[in-house]
Every structure is written in C-alpha cells, then in structure tokens.
C-alpha cells in the first residue's frame, strides 16, 4: 500500500509545481485544489481520517472558492502581467537557497541511521482531546487572533451614512 502514498505524493508535488509555474491565475488555483485533495488523500493514508475530511471541506472547498472568487474578477490582463513576473531573475535566487536546504535534507537522510517514520493513528477524538486539553491556550489565542480580523472586516465593510460621504 506504500505505492498509494507515493502516487498521491507525486500528484501533490506536480500540482504544486504547476501552481507556481502556471501563468494563468485561475488554472493555477485549480491545480492548487488538486494539490489539496491529494494532500487529503495522504492524510487519509496515514490514518488521519478527520484531518483528511477537514482538508477538503475547509481548504479544498471554502477557502479555495474565496481565492477563485477574487482571482476570477482579474480578467485576462493578469496573464500578461504574470508572464512578466516569471522571469528567471525572480525565481533563480529563492531556488538556489531552496536547493541548499534540499542538499541538507539529502545529507541527513543519507547520514543518519534510518529515520524512524513512526506515526500513530490519529482519530478525531485524539485530536480533540489534545487540542482542548494541553493546548487550550493556543486554541484560545488563535481564536482571539481571528477576532481583530473580524472587527477589521466589519469596519471596512460598514455602511457609511450618506451625509458624511
């Protein structure tokens, strides 16, 4: 069954590369949706069923729809702009740095005695107990972080009375 993992991983990587290299923004986002679905499959294969379902519902569904919503409004002009941004000058630098990291990872894998990839089956109950037990402060902090965003959005979107316009 390991082959399933490698296929899903290959799909994820290919789709992610296309997200970056595709000049057409909506097509790039469609590849991102594929990458997220493949990622959900990987979660499922590793036994994290709950995370897999949430990955599709929240990221694959709700959040990507919002992305596409905004990008759809850009129109065809954006393609030319994107092409002008994808010159070698912009991507060579980060890629060289990333290659250095890749080399380090390769060295670690080669040098260290076989890295144990031991995972345990994580069901929704386990996730919830950990999340609302020892990490409750983290959850609360994250939700407080969302609150300023909400208030900010409300402030930006509120209706201005006609006299003050």
């Amino acid at each position: 069954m390991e082959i399933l993992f490698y296929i899903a991983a290959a799909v994820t990587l290919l789709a992610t590369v296309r997200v970056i290299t595709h000049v057409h923004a909506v097509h790039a986002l469609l590849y991102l949706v594929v990458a997220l679905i493949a990622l959900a499959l990987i979660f499922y294969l590793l036994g994290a069923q709950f995370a897999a379902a949430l990955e599709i519902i929240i990221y694959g569904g709700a959040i990507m729809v919002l992305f596409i919503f905004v990008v759809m409004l850009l129109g065809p002009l954006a393609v030319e702009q994107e092409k002008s941004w994808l010159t070698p000058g912009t991507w060579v630098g980060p890629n060289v740095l990333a290659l250095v990291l890749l080399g380090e990872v390769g060295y670690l894998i080669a040098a260290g005695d076989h890295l144990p990839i031991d995972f345990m089956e994580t069901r929704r109950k386990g996730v919830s107990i950990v999340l609302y037990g020892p990490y409750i402060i983290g959850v609360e902090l994250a939700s407080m972080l969302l609150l300023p965003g909400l208030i900010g959005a409300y402030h930006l979107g509120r209706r201005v009375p006609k006299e003050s316009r």
Partner: protein
Amino acid sequence: MIDWSHTALTIVVILGGALTLAGLLIWVERRLLGIWQERYGPNRVGPGGLLQALADMIKMFTKEDWIPPFADKAVFVLTPAIVVITALMSFAVVPIAPGFVVADLNMGILFFLAMSSLAAYSVIIGGWASNSKFAFLGSLRAIAQLLSYEVFMGLSLMGAVLLAGSFNLSDIVEAQRHLWFVVPQFLGFLGFFMAGLAEAHRTPFDMPEAEAELVAGYHAEYSGMKFGMFFVGEYLSVIVLSAMIVILFFGGWHGPWLPPVVWFFLKTSGFIVLIFLIRATWPRVRFDQLLSFGWKVVMPLALINLLVTGGIVLARMGEGR
C-alpha cells in the same frame, strides 16, 4: 476483509439505480408540474409519457456539441464531469438498508460535506470558463450563495451528530430507532433543508441559473450532452439531498411492516416530490435576501440549536455517570 463481489454489486445497483432515477425524475417533475398547473405535461412518448426522458436523451446526444471559441476550452470541457462525479460519489456513503451501503465510512457525514463543497466548483468554474457575461454573473451569484449556506449547512447537521454520537451515517440511522431526529432537531432539519435547496440550486434558491434574468446562468453556453450532464447532476443532487434528509432526520430505513429498502425509498421519494412542489409554488428570492436571511436568521438559529443540543447531551451524560 472487504467482500469485493458484494461491494461491486452494491456499486452497480446504486449507480445504475441513481442514474436511472435521475432520468426518470426529469419526467416525474414535468408531469407533476403539469398536474399542479392544470395541464397534462409530457404524455405522448410511451405509457403516460414515461419514455420522455429517453427521447430527450437521444435528442441531446445527437445535438451539436458546440464549444464557444472564446471559452477556456480545457476547463469548459472538464466542468460538467465534476458535477456528476461529485454527486455520484456522495451516493457511496448513503446507507439504503442495514449493510446495503458502498462505503460505511467512519466519517460519512464529513465525506458528504466534502463532496458537496467540491461540487460547487462545477458551477463556479463552468460560468467562468464560458467567458460570457450571463454565465459569469451566474457563477458570481453561485459563490455569494455558497458563502451564505455552506456554514450553516455543516452546523445544522452537527446536532444530529451530537445526539447519535457518531459521524457514521449507519450509526445515526440506528440511533433513531425509537425517535426520529426531526423531533429534537427540528431547527437543524429546517436549516439543512434550506441549505440543501441552495446547494442543489433548486427554487427558491436557483438564482445562479435564473432563466428570466440570466438566460440560463452558469450553463448558458453549454449545449448537447454537456448541458445534459449539468441537468442530470442537478437531479442527482436532489436525490442525494432527499436521501440525506431521510437518513439524518427521518429515521432512514426504520419503519413498521414494510422492509427497510421500501421505507427508505418511500421517504426519499416523498422529499423529492416535496422539492418539486416547492418549485411549483414558490417564487425565486433575490440573492441578497438569501444572504441576509442565511447569516442573520438561520446561522444564529443553527448555533443556538447546537448549543442547546450540546448542553442536553452533556446533562444526559452526567446523569448516566
């Protein structure tokens, strides 16, 4: 171990049944609409017009399959497949009778929600890829609609999940042996029914394809069998929606005297006819009305419902201790 032959047989029966039913429903809806509007509806082809769907299918297959030159070709062709595939995938977790289910997943409800959120892409991307103003307006409306119903769709289901203590659809049906969840979860039922109608783009929430304003909305540029797939996909999602309502709130296959499959079939048909009746009698709402009603009324009600249900479940657990 997975019993492959049993699973394969179940898949064939459910897929064949769902697709045939979807075709048949097109005729049923037109006939019923006719009766409610004091006319006959299609009654010429076959006994009582029964073969009308077949005739329509032959017509659609032989029509010219035209792709507009201004469309985004690859995405345009891909889109109609998404709507049918996601609708058919949803059938995988629908338990029709004890043991009569393709995949009795631990997280059946979440699978259904995931498929329904992916199905939204067909509408959004289809309208965008058509590259025409009417289709694009349709998909913009679809997104606005999606944002308003998707949140309370999930929330209104969670009450039933809490009561059953499981995401597994078979367990949820089993938990309703004595009392259907529509009684303790009436608010949840209303919220889910409304979200489901919006999800399947049925009246009164069919703004993305409002034929009076947007020609045909997101599928205005589709012709031939590509349009047919949008059409069949809509009926498939009506069947899935009715089946989910029956499973979550109306006791699934439970019922006296008759065998489970018959009960499931009867209840599901009842909801399908109710959805048709809503189309025959209700005007379409404006989409800002849906947005404000969804966020200001249904969403708080779903939250209160969830809170109260959670409290009751906790109190019951305390008593049991």
